[in-house]
């Protein structure tokens, strides 16, 4: 479980996050949704400590993470895996080397053990026969999957994904979403996913938090969304004709009492 309390963050005087409070639950995919520029990435990076928050507490279980010293923070980070928006694979290393990297750095495994573990992770995300390719030689969807494999190599307790399916076709996007959800349940991780994709919200939104201009604007499950009266949330969710149609259909099937 991850709990954030009264988080504030600004960049050179410009406020980006204001008083964010929420709980991200274990074994669930917790979604942070919002428009581009609303502060999703900054929030996620603040939670993992890549940004220093101005105020507030970030608790991983009972540990107040943002008050730890540099060394303890580093220690905690070996329990976290993160998937970045562009994949962030090391482009001078092969697929296999990328997945082996955290093992190289933080375990005393032998070369064979590391290779086995890397292949296990790659197999879990359905990447086979690509071990010796470089990131530039594989498709965007494959890069994302390799990045997931790298993120789970050390069996993390926490998984963070920043727009895991941006730039992917709808089918691949759903595949990635489902993969994240399956892995979350399989290993009982606490997973937080940033997205602005409505498909993801419907597919995997165990719990959804909507941020608007840096503030928490709404929170609930993906089923609650249809009943919400929050104007900004509705404007965001039902921006497309398709989602409007779905809402209208759903409403016409549920005669009001």
């Amino acid at each position, binding site marked *: 479980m991850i709990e954030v309390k009264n988080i504030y963050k600004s960049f050179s005087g410009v406020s980006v996050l204001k008083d964010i409070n929420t709980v991200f639950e274990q074994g669930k995919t917790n979604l942070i949704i919002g428009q581009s520029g609303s502060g999703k990435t900054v929030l996620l990076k603040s939670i993992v400590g*890549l940004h220093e928050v101005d105020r507030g507490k970030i608790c991983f279980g009972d540990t107040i993470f943002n008050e730890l010293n540099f060394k303890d923070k*580093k220690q905690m*980070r070996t329990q976290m895996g993160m998937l970045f928006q562009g994949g*962030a694979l*090391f*482009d001078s290393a092969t697929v296999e080397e990328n997945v082996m990297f*955290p093992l190289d*750095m933080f375990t005393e495994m032998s070369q064979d053990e590391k290779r086995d573990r890397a292949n296990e992770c790659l197999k879990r995300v359905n990447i086979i026969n690509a071990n010796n390719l470089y990131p530039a030689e594989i498709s965007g969807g494959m890069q994302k999957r390799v990045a997931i494999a790298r993120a789970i190599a*050390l069996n993390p307790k926490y998984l*963070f994904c920043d727009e895991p399916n941006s730039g992917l076709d709808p089918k691949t996007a759903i595949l990635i979403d489902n993969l994240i959800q399956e892995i979350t349940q399989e290993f009982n991780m606490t997973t937080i996913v940033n997205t602005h994709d409505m498909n993801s919200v419907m597919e995997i939104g165990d719990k959804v938090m909507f941020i608007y201009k840096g503030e928490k604007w709404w929170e609930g499950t993906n089923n609650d969304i249809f009943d919400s009266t929050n104007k900004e949330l509705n404007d965001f969710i039902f921006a497309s004709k398709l989602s409007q149609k779905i809402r209208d259909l759903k409403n016409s099937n549920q005669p009001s009492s």
Partner: protein
Amino acid sequence: MGLFYHIGKYFLLLFRVFSKPEKLKIYYRETIKEIDKLGLNSIGIVAIISVFMGAVITIQTAYNTENPIYPKYLIGLTARDTLLLEFSSTIVALILAGKIGSNIASEIGTMRVTEQIDALEIMGVNSASYLVLPKIIASVFFAPFLTLMSMFIGIFGGWIAGVSTGVMTTQDYVYGIQYAFIPYYIVYALIKIIIFAFLITTISSYHGYYSYGGSLEVGKSSTKAVVHSSIFILLFNVILTQLLLS
């Protein structure tokens, strides 16, 4: 203000760079890679430039000392001292600033804007140390070899040019390059290049590491790396010359 801000931030980065490495074995592996990338890959350009500069220095000295009151060995002596004192350290450093400085800044800058540095950090790796330390060690270790090589090749280029244009004989040149030779000049050049190599690597890493934005900003960082490295090389050249030669 801006300058002090950057200098402060630069030293904070250095502080992180020189903290204890996670795993020596991996740092060792990275250092070997960097020696190849930054050092071995620079041999060609340093050799080409040295041979031509040696040639030009010799020919120019020859034309400026045509008057018979100047002994012919002066040509060799001038070529030698110019190479030892300035060319093989300072000018080679400026060339390296252009080559490896831009290389380092764009590599680290790209890693920054594509979040590869964040990926390292989230794994618990000290990204500053992991990325920069092997580069510092590789360049500080390798640059003296480039300087020594440049001295030899430059003197060789001078000989070829001098003899082939007929401005002097081989005997004059050989006598000249041995005449009143001060071995300390080589030490002086090596001390300079070690410090210049450190400046190039750290300044370029700094600009790359603190890139923010996209590929456009990486390009700008790379330009800044070259410009600032060059300025600091020239500044330290004056300081070091005062300290070491006066």
